[in-house]
């Protein structure tokens, strides 16, 4: 697998692609890239059949180990890896540790282990156990084990521990990786820790800069969960800049979490190559549709227009706000399905427009729109009557 930064004339922006994938030759994934967030091995609410209705393209699936740890024994016995096991072998797979849509409890990191919370309760993973799982899953790409239990409020001591332990985990995982036969075609991502400490980031990044990894995950900025949406770019900008300064420019960089669209745009500009789609998931779970928030208000009960007139997704083409509202209101299983179709489609389109804007140097326009969008979200929550469609329609225009 290769990551290449493509230089486009008259464009200084960071655009790239992942290609020469051993398992899926011919597949090219452009960056900035959206990883499809999965839970229990499926895109939430979508079967393969319905996923095909959202997008026929092949995507990179983001499979957090904490949501599929219960499959470990079965996948080991299956022998063909996680992609085949979950019935999505046409897709590229990436394994991370924690679920970005769920808050990771604080304070469970130990000297040699970190904790995950799969369905059957807390599970401690040391580097060896983690690599056992990875070897069984045979992902196309994965991150090494790390201690990312830091956020804006973490103490110096905690940050230092997270950096030190992550380095130890990295060494142990890489050792296993090099010896492993089944993982010889899998790309490894090193994990940069250091919380919000400049010194910690520098130490972690410098240590990893010389290693032979495929790319990096910038971790330790938050503890996951829906609240990440409220973090602003301003909160993380200095520390991200500091981190990226020490990392080689030509390698792939990934950031987890349900960041709001405006933060995503800014981070793209700073040089992050990939994000996961957990944002679309948390919006769906609270009954929101990207473009308009909180569909569960009476405002939409008698609105027979689509969620977005300009949207080409199946939900907007075939169903009305009133119907989606009714399904959510009566807790029909079809409600989250229709919302996921729209939100995921919308978010994929958002990434498409980011890539196009980067190529044509029009990111500023897109950012203006994203800012308006975020504003309208807040207005919506305060007073639903002020929503107008036109304000939110621009993502697709780009």
């Amino acid at each position, binding site marked *: 697998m290769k990551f290449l930064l493509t230089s486009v004339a008259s464009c200084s922006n960071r655009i790239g692609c992942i290609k020469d994938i051993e398992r899926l030759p011919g597949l090219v994934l452009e960056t900035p890239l959206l990883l499809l967030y999965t839970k229990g091995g499926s895109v939430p609410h979508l079967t393969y059949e319905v996923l095909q209705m959202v997008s026929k393209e092949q995507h990179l699936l983001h499979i957090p180990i904490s949501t599929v740890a219960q499959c470990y024994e079965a996948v080991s016995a299956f022998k063909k890896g996680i992609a085949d096991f979950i019935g999505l072998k046409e897709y590229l797979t990436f394994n991370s540790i924690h679920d970005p849509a769920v808050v990771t409890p604080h304070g469970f990191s130990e000297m040699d282990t970190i904790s995950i919370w799969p369905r059957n309760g807390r599970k401690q993973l040391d580097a060896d156990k983690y690599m056992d799982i990875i070897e069984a899953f045979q992902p196309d790409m994965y991150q090494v084990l790390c201690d990312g239990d830091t956020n804006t409020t973490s103490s110096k001591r905690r940050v230092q521990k997270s950096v030190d332990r992550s380095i130890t985990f990295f060494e142990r995982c890489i050792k296993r990786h090099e010896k492993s036969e089944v993982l010889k075609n899998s790309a490894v991502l090193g994990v940069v820790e250091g919380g919000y400490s400049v010194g910690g980031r520098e130490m972690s990044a410098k240590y990893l800069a010389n290693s032979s990894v495929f790319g990096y995950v910038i971790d330790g900025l938050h503890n996951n969960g829906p609240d990440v949406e409220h973090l602003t770019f301003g909160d993380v900008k200095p520390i991200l800049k500091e981190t990226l300064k020490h990392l080689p420019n030509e390698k792939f960089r990934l950031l987890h979490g349900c960041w709001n669209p405006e933060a995503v745009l800014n981070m793209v500009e700073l040089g992050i190559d990939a994000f996961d789609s957990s944002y679309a998931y948390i919006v769906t779970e609270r009954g929101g549709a990207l473009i308009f928030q909180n569909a569960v208000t009476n405002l939409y009960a008698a609105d027979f227009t689509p969620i977005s007139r300009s949207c080409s997704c*199946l939900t907007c083409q075939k169903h009305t706000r009133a119907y989606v509202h009714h399904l959510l*209101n009566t807790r029909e299983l079809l409600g989250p399905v229709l919302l996921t179709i729209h939100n995921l489609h919308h978010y994929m389109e958002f990434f498409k427009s980011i890539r196009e804007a980067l190529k044509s140097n029009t990111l500023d326009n897109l950012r203006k729109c994203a800012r308006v969008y975020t504003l309208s979200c807040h207005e919506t929550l305060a007073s639903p009557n002020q929503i107008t469609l036109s304000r939110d329609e621009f993502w697709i225009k780009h």
Partner: protein
Amino acid sequence: MGRVFGDAGLICSRPKLNKEAPLLCKSKTYSPNRVTCSLGVHSLQRGLDEELLKWGWPEDVWFHVDKVSSAHVYLRLRPGQTIDDIPTAVLEDAAQLVKANSIQGSKMNDVDVVYTMWTNLKKTDGMEVGQVGIHKEKEASFSVRKIRVAKKSNEILNRLNKTKQVAHPDLRAEREKRDREEREDKKRLLREQRERDKEEERRKKEEAELSYSYIYAFLPSISPPTLPPPRSTCMRYSVVFAEYGITHQPTICGTLKGLLPDQLEALGCQIMLGNTYHLGTRPGPSLIMKAGGLHKFMNWNRALLTDSGGFQMVSLLKLAEITEEGVKFQSPYDGSEVMLTPERSIEIQNSIGADIIMQLDDVVKTTTVGPRVEEAMHRTTRWLDRCLKAHQNADTQNIFPIVQGGLNTALRTESAKQLIQREVSGFAIGGLSGGESKDDFWKMVHLTTDLLPEDKPRYLMGVGFATDLVVCCALGVDMFDCVFPTRTARFGCALVSGGQLNLKQKNYANDFEPIDKECECSTCKRYTRAYLHTVVTVETVACHLLTIHNIAYQLRLMQRIRDSIEQQCFPEFVSNFMRTTYPSKEYPQWIVDALAAVNILLDVAEVAAENSV
């Protein structure tokens, strides 16, 4: 500062036996039940009396010598015990103890000892230390008891003395611990009750949930069956043309539950059932009217059927009351009293705009007997006439009457005879599949289909197990509705020929086969049992995957039935089907009888022979 007697636990303290106090002693005779007696001494240990008084438990019984001063003895009952449950031997122990610990009482004969529950004691600010009052003395339930001690019994006192132990009980902490435990206990009970209620509600909801089922049925402008009934069985085959497409019969329905209209069309679903009760409350008929009818509201271009809404009311709402006017019930939303009349039911169904609509019928529990069944049957006919009169869209919507009459042959015959005199395009068979024996069930179906006109479709309500479908098709039923395939999917079960797989079971954890190798559905083409095992009942995706498979399974079954009828080999099909379902050929008797009634003879010879031997 105390001493305890023995291993059972009477708390006692007194200057005469011992200068220390309190003392806990255990009455041997009562030791299996662990009764605690406490004696607080009033002279030296007045403070202790006060303590015991203050931090006593509601389970404590207080003993004191009547009229003269004495120590206080406490006996702790076990939860659930009352003052009447104290064994005589223990009473004697306590009385002896209290007498021995009274300065005056110990010297007297024929002393009365009073005892009462601790909760009856009264201590007010004006009282002196050691003085105690009693509440509600006159109330029988709180009465103060008396026991007479004739004279000192050294035997008892020595025994108690032998078991004494020194104790320093922290009375306050013990009481607080007890109260805490009691509170937690109460909370736990409350929680359990709530969970039970929730479970009950969920179960009810599921039972009533048909909200978007779809039926494979046929529609109004009925064309006669394209093939004459082959041989002597009653099963039929016809193609019906409707405003919204063509449907074939015999047909079946399942529930939509989370599937897109596109997926249903791809599965070959032709008619869907909408639930009038649910649609009528949310989103409500006026909104559906505004949307241009249910077809447009949900973007479903094929046929639709709605029920009358009456069944859900009777089964969902305890308070439903049926009168000649209609079904009166309390709205679950605002508690107000609402009346569903035949006219209102049709009005709602008119605004929903389904192709087939149901009359409001008077539903009684299937197993009901007596005059109520007859009343319901006649009322159903009267309500049908009111429905037909109120109907606004006779050119686009078709009302089906519902044959009632419980399990009574005469009443069912009468019901069918009344209904066939009305001008309608099809009939429903109601009031079955509600807990009656299979033997009664098939006989009623057989009886009813014989009475209904050949050229009009018959819809059997609420039937959907695979064997029932096959048998009832043979008996001459054309359409069915059922939530079974989707409901069972929600519990993690997949339908396969011969039964169902519960994918939650551990033996599927390493089973890398599809649910059914023969099945062509999108689930079986891509997903393994092992993967489904890991997500079943957790992720909604698993429910969607199983729903698709189960509906595909039922549809395939109906397709096979139709094909075999078309090819004039239906009896062979039934025999084969039953052999697969019951490989040992031990067919349930009702199936054998029902099929024999329409001249399909199952190959039961050997089994029957064995049985007769």
